[in-house]
C-alpha cells in the first residue's frame, strides 16, 4: 500500500470519529455550531476517502471494485456523499447524529479487513463487475441513508422525514433491481446459469423482497409511520447480512469476492 493510501485512510477514520463525537455532543447540548463542525469533519472524511480510493486505483491500475474491503470504501463514500447532500438540502442536522455511528462502524470494519490490492481472478474480469458493483453502491448507499432516516423518524416522527425515507428506499430499490439483473446476466456469462440460489444472490433477493414489502405496504397505505420505519430498519439489517454475514457464515459462489 502506498503511503498516500495509508495516510488518507487514517485521516478519514479520525475525521469520521471526530464527526461522530461532535454529533454526539450536539445531540445533548443542541448547539447548531457543533452540528456544523461535525458536518465539516464528515466532509473532510469523505474528501480523505476520495484520495484513498484514487491512490489505491492508481497503485493497482484498476478501479477498486474487486473485494469486500474495496466495496466498503465505495459504500462509505456513496453513503457519505448522499448524507452530506441530504443534510444540506433538507436542513436535517440531526441526520448526522444517526448516520455517523453507521459510518464509523463500517470504517472500523474496513480497517479490520484492510489489505493491499490484488490482481483480478478470471471470474471477475468482466465489464459487468463495474456495473454490478456500481448499482450495489447506489442501492446499498441509499438503504443505509434510509436506515438513518427511519431511526431518526422513530426518535422524532415528522411527515417530511417519513416521505424522505420512502423516496430514498424507492430510489435504492430501483438500483437494487438493476443490481440483481446485472448479477444474473453476468452469472450467465461466467457460470452458465443466471440464477443458482447461491447464498449471496438469495440474500440479495431477500433484501429486495423486504424492500418490496416496504414499498407495496407504504404506497397502498397498509403501513405508515412507525410500522413502516421498522420495516426500513429490518431491511437494513437484512442488507447488512447480505453484504457481510453471508461471507462468514454461508460461503458460496461469491467467495471469490472477499
Amino acid at each position, binding site marked *: 500500500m502506498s503511503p498516500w493510501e495509508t495516510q488518507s485512510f487514517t485521516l478519514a477514520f479520525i475525521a469520521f470519529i471526530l464527526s461522530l463525537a461532535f454529533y454526539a455532543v450536539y445531540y445533548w447540548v443542541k448547539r447548531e455550531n457543533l452540528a456544523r463542525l461535525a458536518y465539516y469533519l464528515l466532509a473532510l472524511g469523505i474528501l480523505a476517502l476520495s484520495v484513498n480510493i484514487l491512490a489505491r486505483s492508481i497503485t493497482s491500475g484498476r478501479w477498486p471494485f474487486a473485494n469486500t474491503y474495496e466495496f466498503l470504501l465505495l459504500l462509505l463514500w456513496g453513503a457519505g456523499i448522499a448524507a452530506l447532500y441530504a443534510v444540506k438540502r433538507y436542513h436535517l442536522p440531526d441526520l448526522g447524529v444517526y448516520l455517523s455511528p453507521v459510518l464509523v462502524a463500517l470504517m472500523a470494519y474496513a480497517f479490520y479487513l484492510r489489505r493491499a490490492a490484488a490482481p483480478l481472478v478470471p471470474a471477475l474480469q468482466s465489464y459487468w463487475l463495474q456495473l454490478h458493483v456500481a448499482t450495489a453502491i447506489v442501492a446499498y448507499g441509499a438503504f443505509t441513508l434510509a436506515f438513518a432516516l427511519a431511526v431518526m423518524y422513530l426518535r422524532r416522527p415528522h411527515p417530511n422525514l417519513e416521505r424522505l425515507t420512502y423516496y430514498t428506499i424507492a430510489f435504492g430499490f430501483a438500483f437494487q433491481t438493476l443490481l440483481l439483473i446485472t448479477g444474473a446476466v453476468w452469472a450467465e456469462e461466467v457460470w452458465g446459469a443466471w440464477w443458482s440460489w447461491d447464498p449471496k444472490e438469495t440474500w440479495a433477493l431477500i433484501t429486495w*423482497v423486504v424492500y418490496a414489502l416496504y414499498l407495496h405496504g407504504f404506497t397502498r397505505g397498509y403501513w405508515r409511520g412507525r410500522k413502516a420505519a421498522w420495516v426500513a430498519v429490518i431491511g437494513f439489517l437484512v442488507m447488512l447480512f447480505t453484504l457481510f454475514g453471508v461471507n462468514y457464515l454461508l460461503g458460496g459462489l461469491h467467495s471469490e469476492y472477499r
Partner: protein
Amino acid sequence: MKEILKRLKDHFTSLPHVLLVLGLIAVASALGTIIPQERPAWFYLERYGEFWGNFLLRLGINNLFKSWWYVLAEVWLLVSLALCTYDRARLAWRRPSWWGLALTHAGLILILVSLLVTPYVTRKTSVEAVPGQMVSLSSQHFPFDLKVEDFRIEHYPDGTPKQYYTKVSVWEKGEKVREATISVNHPLSFQGVKVYQMDYGWLLKGRIIVGDRTTPFTVESGPEHPLALGPFHQLVAEYYPNLQGRPQVFYAFYFQGNPVKMGLLPLGKEGELPGAKIVFDRAEQYTGLEVKKNPALPFTFAGFILASLGVVAHLLRHPRRIKPGTNEEGGD
C-alpha cells in the same frame, strides 16, 4: 361462476395476501441458505437427529427451492403478478406515468416464468478434452461437434492465474464451420448453444508392468479422481509440473481401500508397486468445458430488459404524490 372468479381475483390481488406470500418466500429462502441443500438423506438424519431430520426430508427442505410448496408459492406470486400487471396496464392508459411500473411487473412475470421452466428445458453436458481431441456433441443431440485445438493458462507476474483460454473449432456434419477462443467470461455462442470455460486439470498416461505383460492406463490428477485397477486395486496420482525443477508424480496405490505403496516419481522413470512396476510416461493438460442449451434464455433476457427499462422510466418521472402520513399507526 362470475362471483367465484371475482373472489379468486380479490384473493390474488389482496395486498395483505401478497405481503404474506412475499414474506413467506423471504423466510423460506433464508432457511434454504442456512440448511445445506441437496445432501444425501443420512446427512440430515445425522446432523439434525431422527425427528428433525425426517421433518426436513418430509417437507423437502433438503431441496427447498424445488420443493412443491416453494414452487407453489412462486406460482401463486405469478398469478398475482399477472392480475396486478393487467390492472396496472389498464390504469397506465389513463395515467401514462404508470407505464414504468407496468413494464417492470411485466418483466418480473417473464423472469419468474423463466425461473420455473429453465430446469426443465435446459440440456447440458460437461466436457473434458485435451488439445487435438474431437468431442462428439451431435451424438448427444447438440447441433454441432467441438474440437479442442489448444488450451493455455495466462498468469500474473506473481504466478496466480489470470485467464484460461481454450481454442476450439466447431464442426457440422464433418465440416469445420467456425473457430473461436473460449475463456472465463467469454463463452462461445453458436446456434442457441453456449460453451463455457469451467475447469482444467491434468491427465496422466502411463503403464503398469507385471512380468512381461504391460497394461496402459490414464488417470486424472488429483485425490478426487481415483482409478480402479481391477476389483481390488486403486491408483491415485497427483501431478506436479515443476517440483524440485522437474515434472513429478506423487502416487498412492491402494489394495481394498488401504494404501500399500506411495511414492514420488519423475515422468518416464520406473517405480515400484507390490509385484509390479509403474511408469508415468506423460502428462496432458485438459480443459473442462460446459455445453448448455437453454431455449428459455431469450425470454429471460427480454424480462431483464423490460424490468430494467421499467425501473429507469419510473426513476426519471416521479409519479407519486404521497399524502403526508401523520397517522402514527398506519391504518388503511
